[in-house]
């Protein structure tokens, strides 16, 4: 009871009447439940800034995409959604959810300034599903074992890294498949064969692989997840990420839960994340890219869907499970 409610301490300077009304409505709701795939720390930082600006609390739930989709759809189909908005890797899930009316189309939700000057490339499904974050796939390496950072992805096929690769099974996510397809397109199939010849250790998520690189079990890992590596570096682990060449990566899209408990707070949060400030902040704290252009490495390409045929070929070339 001391210090007053967060609403009193809101610092945002709001002039737009539409936004002002939304802020008031959001403050009345008081809190917003966010399901997100970005790292907990990232969600926390963005949430803190949001709370500081508008005096609305954020409760982030952080899980991997698959678990979130599982939860979200179970909750939605039972008619009792717990989330107010989601930040999830873009996938057919969004189309499905929109169609089942689990999500409110963002374009018709009445978010102030939307789409406004939001980069049009990133407005999917006619603006119903905006992409808010681009996570370029990077390489992760152990600074004790690798003297100079890899200069090209082709280092992964260098025989000196034989038995020194920790790679996530490409099948674990569509973004991984896109990445390897990009590699095929860029360097040719022989590159993938070269990686296979180095006998990588396959993991079924990025976590154990990155940990193995940090521990020195392997020298190079893939994919490097910025958030995990940051955690490790903060603890003093000898591990770094680098983007040695063209890359792609998952896109994180935003969705508004239909029939949620705090629709206005959700809209306000969406407004914040879609604004240049919010988007840039998200890009900075997560080490990812923003549609507004910050944080994207050279040679970044939007992920392309991979056909079942291509997926099979990739698996075959890499010799992955």
């Amino acid at each position, binding site marked *: 009871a001391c210090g007053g409610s967060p609403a009193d301490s809101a610092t945002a300077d709001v002039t737009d009447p539409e936004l002002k009304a939304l802020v008031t409505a959001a403050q009345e709701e008081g809190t917003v439940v966010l399901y997100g795939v970005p790292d907990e720390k990232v969600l926390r930082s963005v949430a803190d800034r949001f709370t500081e600006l508008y005096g609305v609390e954020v409760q982030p739930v952080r899980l991997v995409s698959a678990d979130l989709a599982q939860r979200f759809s179970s909750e939605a189909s039972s008619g009792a959604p717990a989330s107010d908005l989601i930040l999830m890797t873009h996938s057919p899930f969004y189309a499905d959810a929109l169609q089942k009316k689990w999500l409110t189309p963002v374009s018709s939700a009445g978010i102030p300034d939307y789409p406004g000057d939001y980069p049009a490339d990133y407005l999917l499904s006619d603006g119903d599903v905006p992409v808010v974050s681009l996570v370029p796939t990077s390489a992760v390496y152990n600074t004790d074992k690798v003297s100079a950072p890899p200069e090209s992805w082709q280092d992964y096929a260098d025989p000196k890294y034989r038995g020194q690769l920790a790679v996530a099974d490409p099948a674990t996510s569509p973004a991984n498949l896109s990445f390897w397809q990009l590699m095929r397109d860029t360097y040719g199939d022989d590159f993938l064969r070269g990686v296979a010849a180095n006998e990588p250790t396959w993991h079924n998520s990025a*976590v154990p692989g990155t940990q193995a690189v940090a521990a020195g079990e392997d020298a190079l890992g893939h994919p490097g997840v910025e958030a995990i590596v940051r*955690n*490790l570096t903060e603890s003093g682990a000898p591990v770094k990420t680098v983007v040695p060449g063209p890359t792609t990566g998952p896109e994180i899209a935003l969705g508004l839960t239909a029939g949620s408990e705090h629709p206005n707070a959700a809209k306000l949060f969406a407004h914040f994340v879609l604004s240049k400030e919010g988007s840039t902040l998200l890009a900075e704290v997560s080490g990812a890219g923003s549609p507004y252009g910050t944080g994207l490495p050279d040679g970044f390409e939007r992920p392309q869907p991979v056909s079942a045929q291509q997926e099979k070929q990739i698996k075959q070339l890499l010799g992955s499970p």
Partner: protein
Amino acid sequence: MRPARPFEAVSLLIGVALIAVVMVPLVRVLIGMFWVDGQFTVRPITRTLSLPGLGDLLRNTVIVVLASSAVALVIGVALAWLNERTNARMGLLTDSLPLLPFLLPPVAGAVGWVMLLSPESGLLNSWIRDALGLVGIRADSGPFDIHSWYGLVMVYAFYAVPFVFMNATAGFRNLDSSLEEASRLGGAGLGRTLRKVTLPLVAPSLGAGLLLCVWFGAGMYSLPAIVGTPAGIEVLSVRIVELLTFSYPPDTEVAVGLSGFVVLFVGVAYWLQLRILRRGRYAVQSGKGGAARRIDLGAWKWPARVVILGYVLVSTVLPIVSLVLVALNGYWTPDIGWGSLSLDALRQAVFDDPITSTALANSLGLGVVGGLVGILAAAAVALYVARHRSALSSTVDAGIKLPAAVSNMVIAVGILLLFGGEPFLLSGTLAILLIGYLALYLPQASIAADAAVAGVGDELPEASAVSGATPFRTFRKVYLPLMVPGLVAGWALLFIRMVGDLTASAILAGTGNPVVGFRILEVFTSGSYALLAALSTVLVVITALVLVAVLAYTRRASRHGVRASVGGV
């Protein structure tokens, strides 16, 4: 026939309600699969059978499960025999230590072993290399590799040993030692006696232990995912989870189809166990003269103790030590900075983080309450079943034990679907977690309660009835006090399981109702082994304290000649 008494009607009602909680969601999933657009379809079956690589999956699963069960059988029986039948026992120490792997969530255990036995950076490997270096043998990797068949089987086996140990212990404890002595006098030495007499006599207990091993092994996810996948060994459970999570929408059809194989494995194991039981030629507890005398190992006593403690050291202490070291060091590395170990991660993961603190409090509260509700309900049902040997009571009994054979994930999703929305609206509450835990762990509660009821026997309640006590008074004054030690033990088991649960928690917990299991998953997926280790360590410490306290209590409770055990121990 006498009309049903109110007390019995209530027991029956509880049983049926508990079964409904599990069965309704399950049946809904099944109907949804086989009844598409108003007509019956066998597509899930045909799709499952045509899954590429199905043969490898099945073969790998069978090999891992059978091999680890066999190893666990040998180790578990040896430990239980030394502890129960010989003077190598060291009181509470050897009673409780082999159960420790129970307390370490498999995801933490798997990570612990990876950190110990990765070929290059495994702590244990590096220590062994250092030691070998002293005698001039140098190597850059090895000698062990956790990501291998033997590594996977070993880790599985460590987790399976408690099941065998618990059951074998119960079997040995009930064995009339004169059966063994008769064999010694017949001219058979210790070894032949063990082979020809002791083991065949406790066959049902060993069968029950093996059954649980298969049960556990066929459904286990974290161990094969973390240890097996890098070794290129894929098993059913991993594939099932992948089908449910790697793509959207989840391929429930094939996932449930594959679960059918899991149910099949467990079914076969169950059938074998039933056959052992049906033969009926095993030792049953004799009322009189069955004083269990321990075999004096003489000079072998201390070597035997060293073996027991050595096993505990390798199987449990090592992974926990590696978790603690990593938690203190901040990240996994073979070059532990001994000087700079700090409690930061521990503090950060457990005490500084408000959600974790809430999660811890929630989990402990749910464990206490859920354990209590679960064991009391199971006791009421067990009593009903024991007193009414009818078709209805057997159905209730079977129904309550069924969830053990079904994928936990399926049950958890089913419960969210059933209770999350109208009219219950329990989504995001502690109540839905409670229901989930109850549904998942009821079989264990039921087994514990059965044992507690069986321990009371028929005569004591009958004496109460003849003394003029109503059934409810008999329950309150005779059954309940006599069952308390058994129920407390059952409660402890439930408490440990519920506090350490990951599956139901992943689906049912959230910001509104965080629990430890959910936090562990979050921490794991966000990639901090140090936090994972810290959280697991705290969990192990708390549950171990509860376990030891309860074991000590049940030992003391035998004062009145009342038997009790924590899952047989």
